């Protein structure tokens, strides 16, 4: 492992709404090494996006980083002056957003939007920036890059726009690229292309990547390490292979069960996580996952576990741990799982509810 690039220590980001304080990020600590790819997973509304936005100090009103440190190469982002944070954004850490359809300015040429990412910082001269735009678009495999720089976003397809967003993110050769659900808004074949592209770029350029997603399959194909978040907290963290092989937190287990796997005969029904993520203005006592946990014990309802080492490099926040759950209980949990249709409906409901929380938080 290389040197530590980003170190988040006990980060708290809260939204002060009329309904109360939403603890969107509640004591998150994580780190990313240079060149490493870290996955941050969880359902919508679990705080992963807000964690990422906190790193760039772009948390929307009425949100605020209330405590904690975000150290980038030893500099604390939370204490930077206005000009310092401006120059930090996009040059040291760049971010790619979820929806390429809305993340580009519709009335400005794509090429210029990439170019201005460079002219905002002093790394490239104005004339070099111009030629680099074409290079960057070529690098992200936009065909006919020379002519497409003069196009407007609406003349690009969704996949091409996301490529342009990635090109913009790479423009200043940042040491960390944060990608927030970079493929969610794209259709499946395009998703695969974008994943392929990001993999290649990570290999070629050595850019560290923080991938935010709810999609475990994406993590498996792109990341070395994974952080699982639930209700603003980290519930499990470890190397991807290890977590996939033996998840210890029931939430991680449930997330993994909800991914259809091609290599596995469909003898099990897909497990969907029942219920909705908790209301972050008024989270449940004890373990925040206990109302939805199939393996809940009495202690979970009253006392919140801390992150404890469960294996080499792997930590989990659970009183039970999957390795202690009896076979028949696991089988029962699987058997009681909902049909895919019901599961999908529940998931849609949960996402709608989370989106509502987001919109309240964002307003």
């Amino acid at each position: 492992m290389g040197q530590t690039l980003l170190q988040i220590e006990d980060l708290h980001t809260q939204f002060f709404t009329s309904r109360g304080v939403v603890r969107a990020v509640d004591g998150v600590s994580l780190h990313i090494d240079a060149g490493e790819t870290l996955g941050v997973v969880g359902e919508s509304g679990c705080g992963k996006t807000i964690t990422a936005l906190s790193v760039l100090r772009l948390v929307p009103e009425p949100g605020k980083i209330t405590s904690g440190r975000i150290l980038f190469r030893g500099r604390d982002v939370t204490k930077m002056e206005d000009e310092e944070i401006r120059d930090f954004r996009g040059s040291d850490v760049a971010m790619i957003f979820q929806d390429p359809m809305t993340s580009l300015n519709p009335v400005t040429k794509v090429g210029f939007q990439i170019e201005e990412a460079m002219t905002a910082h002093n790394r490239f001269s104005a004339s070099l920036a111009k030629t680099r735009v074409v290079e960057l678009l070529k690098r992200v495999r936009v065909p006919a890059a020379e002519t497409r720089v003069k196009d407007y976003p609406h003349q690009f397809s969704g996949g091409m726009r996301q490529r342009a967003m990635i090109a913009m993110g790479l423009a200043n050769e940042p040491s960390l690229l944060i990608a927030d659900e970079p493929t969610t808004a794209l259709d499946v074949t395009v998703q695969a292309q974008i994943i392929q592209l990001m993999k290649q770029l990570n290999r070629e350029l050595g850019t560290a990547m923080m991938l935010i997603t709810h999609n475990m399959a994406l993590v498996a194909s792109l990341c070395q390490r994974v952080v699982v978040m639930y209700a603003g907290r980290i519930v499990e963290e470890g190397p991807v292979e290890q977590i996939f092989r033996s998840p210890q937190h029931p939430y991680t287990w449930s997330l993994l069960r909800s991914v259809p796997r091609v290599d596995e005969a469909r003898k099990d029904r897909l497990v969907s996580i029942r219920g909705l993520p908790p209301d972050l203005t008024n989270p449940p006592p004890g373990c925040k996952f206990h109302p939805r946990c199939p393996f809940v014990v009495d202690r979970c309802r009253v006392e919140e576990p801390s992150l404890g080492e469960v294996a080499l490099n792997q930590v989990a926040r659970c009183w039970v741990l999957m390795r202690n759950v009896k076979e028949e209980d696991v089988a029962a949990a699987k058997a009681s799982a909902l049909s895919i249709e019901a599961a999908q409906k529940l998931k849609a409901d949960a996402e709608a509810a989370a989106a509502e929380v987001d919109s309240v938080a964002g307003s």
Partner: protein
Amino acid sequence: MATAIGLAGQVDWDVPEQTGLWKDAWVRFRRNRLAVAGLVVIVLMIVLALGARLPTAPGGLWRILHLTNEPFLQDVTNSYATPSLQHPLGTDILGRDQLSRILYGASISLTIGIVVQFLILGIGGSIGMAAGYFGGWIDNLLMRFTDIMYAFPDLLLVLVFVAAFGPSFWSIFIALGLVYWVGLARLVRGQVLSIKEKEYVEAAIMTGTSPLKLIVKHLVPNSLGPVIVTLTFGIPAAIFTEAALSFLGIGIRPPEPSWGVMIEDGYAGIFADPRQVIFPGIAVALTMLSFTFVGDGLRDALDPRMRR
């Protein structure tokens, strides 16, 4: 939104309390202090305007209270009187009591402003429904006609209508209805079109069921909010138009004390006594402002997408 999950397989939801749309809207409306203030002013004004017309005699309530005279009673010996207990807002050039004239004028302005909205709803609603429902040439005709209507500024067209019907309360009333229905018709048309595209309506059409009932059933709850908001914003516009017409000498004619008439009269004698225009001017502005606040409040309360 807290969720409780029962034992394996059994899902228990704390279903959020079903606060109805209207109750919800009322809660949101009440949170808007300006809107509530506007509503209070309007209600007060309606009560006073009714009082001015009741019981039977103009200026009735106030005469009974021995506060003011009738709005038409002249007393030339007492012209341009300064405010007193007998004449709280003074008198005009003919010695007529200003307060009772303003209250009488309120009844004219409020009647025109509010009642005309029903006429607009009738005309605009039915034309919009017809255009949206039948589509085709009827719809095309409506849209072309709207083009022509948009070529006239509102006030110009009302002026021409009123000129054609002769200056009176009723001609203003009808002219307003004939001019301001266009926006509402377009709104209703759009709503009908979007409901028509819904799958259940398409399915009903395919199975031979008359879709009209279905559309009406879905149209009313869907478009009630925007329609109410549009009509509410129409009230200050109508009040303004009446006052402007009367001010220009083309609307309601003296001695009927419409606010516009009072402002016109007062403007003629502005060098003698500016109060003659100040009080009716404030009355018009305050009424329009109150309706605008209520309209803003209703819009935010009824249309969650516009909320903020």
